[in-house]
C-alpha cells in the first residue's frame, strides 16, 4: 500500500514538474462536477464525472478507510470519468476526494458509503471467558458484530437478538448496536452448569456458544476416617474421607479440588495426606502409625474451607519385644515381634538401632525391617572395634537401651 502511495506521490511530482510550463501560461482551470450524489451503497459502482476545458493532466486523489490513491481519468472530449476502485467502494464511511492538476487543487469534496444492508448479513459472535464461577458476580460477555458481505459493520442501533439458555429457562434480549458492536454481559447463575447462547439478526443466527459455570469455593465440610482396626501396626491403611463438599449455593465443588488432610500426632508433628475430590468427595490414605498414637485430623481447602476436627487413637500393636546377642555379641536379634492377637507382625516393621560410643558420642543409626517377626542387626568389627558401646533400640515406639562390650580375644 505504502508503495502505491509513494509511487503516486512520485507520479504527481513528475507530472507537476513536467507541466510546469503550462501553469505559467495561466490556463483556464475551471472544472465542474457532473453529479452530486452524496451517499452510495458499499459494493456498488461509483463514478465521478467532471467537465473541464483544461488540457492539463488532471488526477483524482481519493482517501477513505481503505487508504489513499490517485486515479487517472478516462477522457471523453471535455469530460473526465473517474471510477472508484472496488477496494475503496466496498469500504463504508466517508470518502474524500480532491481533483488536482499541476499540483494544484481544483475541486474537493466527499461522499459517504453506506453498508449494503439489503444483502444477507453476517454475524460475528464472541463469547468469553469460556468458564465462570457460580454466584451473582461473575459473568461472560457476549459480543456480536453484524456485517454486510464486504465486512462493513451495520449502522449504529441495529437491533440484534441475544438468547441464552440455562437449565429450563431461555432468555431473550434485544440489544441495539453501539460503537460498532452489540454486547451483553451474561451473568453467572448460582447453580453450576452450562450456559448456551446465540445471537440472531433477521433470519440469520450465529452458532451455539458455551460458557461453563463452575461451582464457587467450597464451604465447611465433614470428614471421617475408615480403618480396619485400631492398632498401630504400621501396616494397615487408613482412609481419610470427606463428605460431599458443597459451595454456598449447594453445588458440589469442582472435580479435582485439592483437600489437604492435616494430621497432628501426639509428638506435635504435622503429617499430611492429600487428595483431589471426585463428586465432592476427597479420599486420601495414610498408613497406621507403628506405635501408640493419638491423631487429630483436620482437612482444608486452603483459604476457603475447613472441616470438622476428628480425633483418633491407635493402640499399641506390639507391647513388648525381646532381643538377644550372638556371635560375640556382634549380631543383635530383635524379636520375635508379636502383634495384638499374638500373631507375628507383617514383614517390614522398622527396627532402628542407634549406636553411641562409650563417651556418649552418636555414631550411626542402623535400620532394618523385620522378616517373619525378627530383625537382625550386625555390628561388624571392622567398623566397631572392640570396646563398649551404648545401643538404643527403637521399635514400634518402644525404646530399649543397653550397653554391649565387644571383646574378641
Amino acid at each position, binding site marked *: 500500500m505504502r508503495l502505491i502511495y509513494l509511487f503516486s506521490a512520485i507520479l504527481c511530482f513528475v507530472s507537476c514538474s513536467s507541466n510546469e510550463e503550462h501553469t505559467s501560461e495561466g490556463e483556464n482551470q475551471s472544472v465542474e462536477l457532473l453529479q452530486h450524489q452524496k451517499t452510495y451503497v458499499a459494493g456498488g459502482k461509483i463514478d465521478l464525472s467532471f467537465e473541464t476545458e483544461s488540457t492539463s493532466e488532471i488526477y483524482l486523489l481519493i482517501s477513505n478507510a481503505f487508504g489513499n490513491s490517485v486515479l487517472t481519468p478516462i477522457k471523453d472530449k471535455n469530460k473526465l470519468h473517474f471510477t472508484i476502485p472496488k477496494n475503496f467502494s466496498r469500504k463504508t464511511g466517508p470518502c474524500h476526494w480532491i481533483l488536482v492538476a499541476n499540483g494544484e487543487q481544483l475541486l474537493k469534496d466527499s461522499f459517504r458509503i453506506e453498508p449494503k444492508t439489503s444483502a444477507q448479513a453476517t454475524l460475528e459472535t*464472541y463469547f468469553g471467558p469460556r468458564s465462570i464461577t457460580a454466584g451473582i458476580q461473575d459473568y461472560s460477555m457476549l459480543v456480536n458484530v453484524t456485517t454486510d458481505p464486504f465486512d462493513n459493520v451495520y449502522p449504529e442501533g441495529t437491533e440484534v437478538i441475544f438468547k441464552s439458555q440455562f437449565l429450563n429457562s431461555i432468555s431473550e434480549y434485544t440489544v441495539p448496536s453501539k460503537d460498532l458492536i452489540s454486547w451483553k454481559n451474561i451473568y453467572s447463575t448460582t447453580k453450576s452448569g452450562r450456559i448456551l447462547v446465540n445471537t440472531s439478526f433477521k433470519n440469520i443466527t450465529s452458532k451455539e456458544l458455551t460458557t461453563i459455570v463452575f461451582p464457587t469455593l467450597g464451604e465447611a465440610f465433614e470428614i471421617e476416617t475408615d480403618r480396619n482396626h485400631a492398632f498401630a501396626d504400621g*501396616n494397615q491403611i487408613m482412609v481419610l474421607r470427606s463428605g460431599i463438599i458443597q459451595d454456598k449455593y449447594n453445588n458440589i465443588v469442582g472435580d479435582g479440588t485439592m483437600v489437604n488432610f492435616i494430621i497432628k500426632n501426639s509428638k506435635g508433628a504435622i503429617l499430611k495426606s492429600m487428595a483431589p475430590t471426585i463428586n465432592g468427595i476427597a*479420599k486420601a490414605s495414610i498408613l497406621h502409625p507403628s506405635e501408640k498414637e493419638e491423631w487429630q485430623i483436620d482437612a482444608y481447602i486452603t483459604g476457603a474451607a475447613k472441616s470438622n476436627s476428628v480425633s483418633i487413637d491407635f493402640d499399641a500393636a506390639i507391647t513388648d519385644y525381646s532381643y538377644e546377642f550372638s556371635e560375640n555379641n556382634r549380631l543383635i536379634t530383635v524379636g520375635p515381634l508379636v502383634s495384638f492377637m499374638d500373631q507375628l507382625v507383617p514383614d517390614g516393621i522398622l527396627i532402628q538401632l542407634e549406636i553411641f560410643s562409650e563417651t556418649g558420642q552418636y555414631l550411626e543409626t542402623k535400620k532394618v525391617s523385620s522378616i517373619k517377626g525378627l530383625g537382625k542387626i550386625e555390628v561388624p568389627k571392622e567398623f566397631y572395634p572392640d570396646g563398649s558401646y551404648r545401643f538404643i533400640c527403637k521399635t514400634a515406639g518402644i525404646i530399649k537401651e543397653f550397653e554391649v562390650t565387644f571383646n574378641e580375644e
Partner: protein
Amino acid sequence: MEALKKTNTLLILALIIGLAFHGSSIFFTLEYTYDALIHLFFASHYAADWFEPWDYSWYTGFTVQSYPPLIHQTIGLLSYIGGLKFGMFTVAIIGIILFITGIYRFALLLTGNRRVAGYTALLAVFSSTFIETLHIFGQLPSVCALSILLHAMPEIYLWTKTGKRRYLVSSLSLIAVTVTSHHVTPIFGMVFFIFPLLGMAVMDEAREKVETMKRVSFKVFYKALKSCFWRIVIFGGCSLILIITCILPYWYNSKRNPITQVPIPHGSRDNFLEVTSSGLVFFVIPWGILLFILPYILYRFYSKRYMFFGLSFSALTLLGTGGTTPIPLKLLGETAFNILTLDRFTLWATIMALPIFGEFAFRMTEGDLKDRIQSMLGRVYHRILGGSLAGGLLLMVGFTMTLGYFRPSQPSKIKMLPIVNFLSQDSHDSWRYLPLGFGDQMAWLSAQTNAMTVDGNYHSARRLPELTTRAIERIENSKFRGVEGIGSLQQFLTVPEKYNLKYIFSNDKFYDPILYFCGWQRLQQLENGIMVWEKLNVPPLPEILPKEKTPLFLNIMWGTIPVLTVILAFVINIMMLWLRKLRARKDEAPNFLKLSVAYTSFSKRLIIISHVWAVIILACLVFGLYTFYIKNTAQLSPKNVVQSYYDALDFKEFKRAHSYLDPEAEVTIDQYMLEVSVTDGILSSYAKLDSIGIDIIDISQAGAKAKVSTTWITPLEKIKKDYFHELIKDSGKWYIKPKKKDSDIPPDQLFIANSTTFYNHGRRKITTQQTHHEDVLKQPVLEILAAKLVRYKGQYSIIGELQNVDDVPADVVIKATLYNDVDKELAIHNAKYHMKHKLMPKETTPFKINFEGIAWSSTKDTMPTTFDPDQFTPMSLDEQPVKFNLQSAGNVANTDLYKSVALQNLEFSDYGINGSLYNGGIQEVTIPQLLVSYYDDKHELLWVDHQFLDEGVRVQRKQFFNYQPLDVAELCIIESSLENCFVNGLPNESITKKVFPRRDYSHGHAQLQPYEGKGYSFLKFDINSYIGNPK
C-alpha cells in the same frame, strides 16, 4: 624403461581393492561417524539456497561461511540427482579414489620408483589412519583436501625444478581446490608438506650439479636455492593469494565473528598415557603397524635428500602426541593448542610416512631387504616376519573398522521420519525444538526439517553466550560434558520463552527428571520410540528473524568460486593431459623419475636396530595388555570385584553384577533381577557413576570389607553415597555378599483407586486454519499469596507462595525481574525446580526463583574439573536490587497431576529431621522431591529449600528421608510486596478481590509445622513427585 611406461598393475589393484573395500563399507560406517552428517547438513543448506549464507536452523541462526564450502556444495549439487545421502557417498567414493591416486603420485615423486609407488598405493588402502579418518571420524573435507594436496605435490616439484609455467598453473589450480575444500589443510600443508617438498626440489637441483649426493654441500645447496628462489617466491605468493581470495568470505566472517569461546576439550589434547582411550584413538590406531618400522622411516627421512621431510615428519609426530609431552603446548602456544585438534598432525605424519612404508614393503617382498634377511636369518624367518607384518596390518584394519561396532560412538540409528512429520504437523515448526541424546544424528534431522533448534553441531559457529562460554559441543549430549553441559541445558529448560523453545525430543531418559522438574511435560511417544516433551506458555517464533547480512559480492564469490576451481582444475589437469595424449606427442618422463635410488644393500645395522625397536614395542604392548588384564579381571582381587560390580550396576548389566555375588548366599538370578526391577529412583535409574573410591579394610585369606565411596551424576544433582560390602574369597575368586532388601509388605494384594483425569482436545475441528477461539481454553486463574525479595548467603532470590484458585488444573510458569531503586532492570529469571509446576484446583505451592547468571561468562574463571550438575552460578549484580516484578501464567494442565504421596511420619532429632513418605496411589513415584518452606513466628514465609530423595516410593510403600534444616538467621528480607505481582497479565490484587475476597489465612497457618530452628519458627513440607513410567 619400457616396463615403466606400462600401466601400473599395483595401482590398478589398489584402486580396485580400495573401491571394493572402502566403497562398500562406507555405507555401514559413514553415517555413524562424528562429522559426516554435519557436512550433510551444510550440503542441505546449499541445496536449498545456494547463495544465502545465513542459516536459521542452528544456534538461533549462523553463517555457513564459517566452513569452506566445496565439499558441501558438491554434495548439494549431487543431491539434485539422487538425494543428500547419494551425494555424500559419491563424494566419499571420489575422496577414496583421489586419496589412492594422490598417495601414488606422492610416493612416485618421493621415491621415483613406480613399483614402490604401487606398493604405497596398496598399503594406503589398508592404512589405519585413513580408515580411521574416513570410517570413524568421517572427515570428508579433510580427506579430499589432503588427497588433492598430494596430487599437487608433483606439479609443485616440477615447477620448482623446471620452471615450466604449465606446472605452476596446474599446481595452483589444485591448491585452489584444496583451499575451498578445507582451510586448515593448505595452511598447515604449506608448512609441513610443501616446505619440505621445496627443500627436496632444491636439493635435487643441487644434486644434479654435482656427481653424487655426498658432494652436495651447503654451498652447492645455496647456489641451487638461488636459482630456484624466484620460482618458490612466485609459487608461495600465488598460493597465498589463492588461500585468501578463494575463501575470502570465510576470512571476512572470521574477522567479524572471531571465535571467542571457551575451548572444548578434545581427546587429542589429552595425555595419552593417562587417558588410554584417547591414546588408542589418537595415537595407536593412526600409527598402527607403522610403529614397528619407525626406525626405518626415520632412517630414510633423515637421508640427505629427504632431510626436510624428516624434520617435518618429526615435528608432526611430536605435535601429534598431544598432552603426553609438554612440547606441543610449547610449540603451538596456548591459543593454537586449545583450538586445533592435534589428531590431524598424526594423520599428516602417518600419510607422509606411507611412501617410506611402501618402499619398505617393496624391499621386504622383492628387494634387498628380502635377500639380506634371508641370508642373515633364513628363508623361513623372512616369511614369518612378512606374514606377521601383513597380519598386523590386517589386524589393525579389522580393529579400526569394527571399533565403531564394539564401542559405538553414536546412539543407534534413529528413524527421523516420525520426528520430521511431527515437526511439520500442526505448525509445530513455529517453535524451536531441541534434540537430546541424538549424537551427531541431530545434523541429519536438521537437514530434513524446516524447524529450527537452539542447539547445533558446528561449535565454531555458536553464537549464544549460554553456549560459547561453556566447553560443550552440543547441549544435546550435555550429560557427557558435566557441569557445563547440564548447566547450559538447565538454562535452556528454565527460560525456554527466551528461545521460543517448545519441543524436546528425548532419546535418552537420563534427561527426563530435569525436564519434569523444570516444568516440561510429556506430549507423546513417537513410533520410533523418541519421547516428545513440550512446555506450555511459550510464544511462537516471530515471522521475521534477525540475521547478519554479508555483502552481495562475498555471497556470489562463495557460491561460485569453489565449483569454478574444480572445473578449472579438471580442465587444466585432466583435459590437457588427454589432449596431449591424443596429439600423441611423446611426453618426457617427469624429472623426479630419474632420481630413484637403487635398492641394493640393506644396512645390517638397521635390521638389528629395527629388531630391537620391534621388541621394545612388543614388550610395551604385552605390558599394556597385562595391566589391562590385571585391572579388569573381575574377581582377581577384592578391589576388582567391587569395581566390576559397580561398573556392571552402572551399565545396568545385572546378570554380570549377579555373577559377582556370593554363590553361597543363594540369591538366584531370578531373585536378584526381581529385586533390581523393583528398585526405582534417581540413583538406580538416572545416575551415572562419576567416581568410585574403594577402601579395602581387614583383608584376610578368605574375606575382606570394602567401604565404597561413590559419587553419582544425576541430571538434577550430584549425589555422594557410601556403601559397605562384605567380600569373601571362594576357590580363588572374590565375591560380594548380597545385602538384605527392605522387607516391607503392603497389606493388600489388589488396590482400587479412583482419580480425576483431564483431557484437552486442542482443536476440535480438523483444520489448517487458526484454532477457533472457542477452542482456546481460558488460562486458569492463580493467586500469589506471598512474594518476597530476600538475600541469603550473598545471593538474591525471590520466594513466595502461589495457589491455583481456578476449577481446573494449572501448569504454572513464574518469571521474576529485579530492579534497582531507579527502576533499572537488573536481572530476569524463571522458577526452576523450587516449585510444583502442576497444581490441582486450590492447591498451593511455595516457589523460589534464583537469579542464575551465565556460568563462567568470563572465560578467565577457572572451571571445575569434575561434574557437578547442581553447581550454581549466581548472577553478578552490579547494583543492589530493591524491587521486583513477578509475572505468573497458568495454562490448563492435564498430565503429571499425581498427588497421592503422603507425609507419613516426622521425627525431630539432633541430626536432622527424619521422616517417611507413603505412596497411597497406584503409580510408582520415581523421584520424590521435598519442598521445605521456612516461616517466622508471624507465619511469614522466609525461605524455600528443596531436597530430592535418592530412592523412589513404590506403590503403597514407605520411603525414609533425612532432612537437615538450614540456618536462616542471616537471611535478610529486602522487599515483601504483592504490588507488582501479575497473573496472566492481570494484577494479582484484582484476583484476590474477585476470586478470593474472604480468604481465611488461618488455614495456611494451621498447616505449618512448629519447629524451633535457627532464625525461623515453622516449617512446611510439600511433596512433588516425578513418575518415570506413567501407567
